[in-house]
């Protein structure tokens, strides 16, 4: 059973991580979670990012959401923004694609071109 008492230990550990990170620029993942994004499957994608980030213990990545940007046919969509670089937009993202995006793009700095909006056929 999970109890609220677990949170004391988590707090101590997390504060350390937050302090360590302060001077760094974080990578950002921004997921479209309006009606269109949610209907297309954005929720499992967002949860897959959280899981992958935790699995790899990445301290420099934040995941956030945004609304509808008007290209609903490409949902689920997300942007990956690395510090000092242009954002890269991924389209039709499925949870299975998330480990590759995290490993190749967020960790190694190489966008997964075939998943990006630049590779869209229509």
């Amino acid at each position, binding site marked *: 059973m999970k109890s609220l008492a677990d949170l004391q230990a988590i707090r101590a550990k997390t504060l350390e991580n937050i302090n360590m990170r302060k001077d760094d620029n974080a990578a950002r993942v921004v997921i479209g*979670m309006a009606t269109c994004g949610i209907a297309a499957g954005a929720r499992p994608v967002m949860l897959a990012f959280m899981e992958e980030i935790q699995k790899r213990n990445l301290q420099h990545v934040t995941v956030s959401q945004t609304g509808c940007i008007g290209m609903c046919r490409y949902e689920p969509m997300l942007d990956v923004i690395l510090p000092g670089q242009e954002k890269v937009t991924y389209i039709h993202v499925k949870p299975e694609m998330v480990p590759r995006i995290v490993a190749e793009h967020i960790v190694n700095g190489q966008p997964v071109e075939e998943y990006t909006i630049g590779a869209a056929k229509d």
Partner: protein
Amino acid sequence: MRDLSLHLLDLAQNSITAGANLVTVRMTLDDSGMLTMELEDDGKGMSPELLARVTSPFATTRTTRKVGLGIPMMKENAEKAGGNFTLESEEGKGTKLTASMDTGNIDCLPMGDLSGTMLSLMLTNPLHPDFLFEGKSPKGEGTFDTREVRTALGSDIPFNEPSVAAWLKEALDEEINSIFGGILI
């Protein structure tokens, strides 16, 4: 929208946009199989004029486009599954949405990943607002209150910190499974 939990995720966004401090989700399955979802917030509320037209797909507070489908789709899904849809709101006080469905009706939406929806809400709104979940079924009842979590964790730590997120996921899964596991999920 494939299931009720996705509707909930979508509709709760309206409460957050309305500046709520507390978003309450009540999911109740009664003995007759009627499932009622209540979504209540203490946000800015709606004027009677907006409230009257908000169930139309052509009403939205957005400025970029003229359609808003979240509320009308929920209303349609509730009504075609032998249930009701009501929306009460008062400016400055908040809004309460109630949607019911007969789980014995063939058109009733499946529940879907309710725990995943609550977790998504907490992770994408890591510091504010708070969420209160109250679940009840013939199997049991329970609550999950992020205000309690923040008291124990410290309100300066965001919920999307990976170790906190992992704790929330397990705690939510346990709680929701103990209420609806084997019945709705």
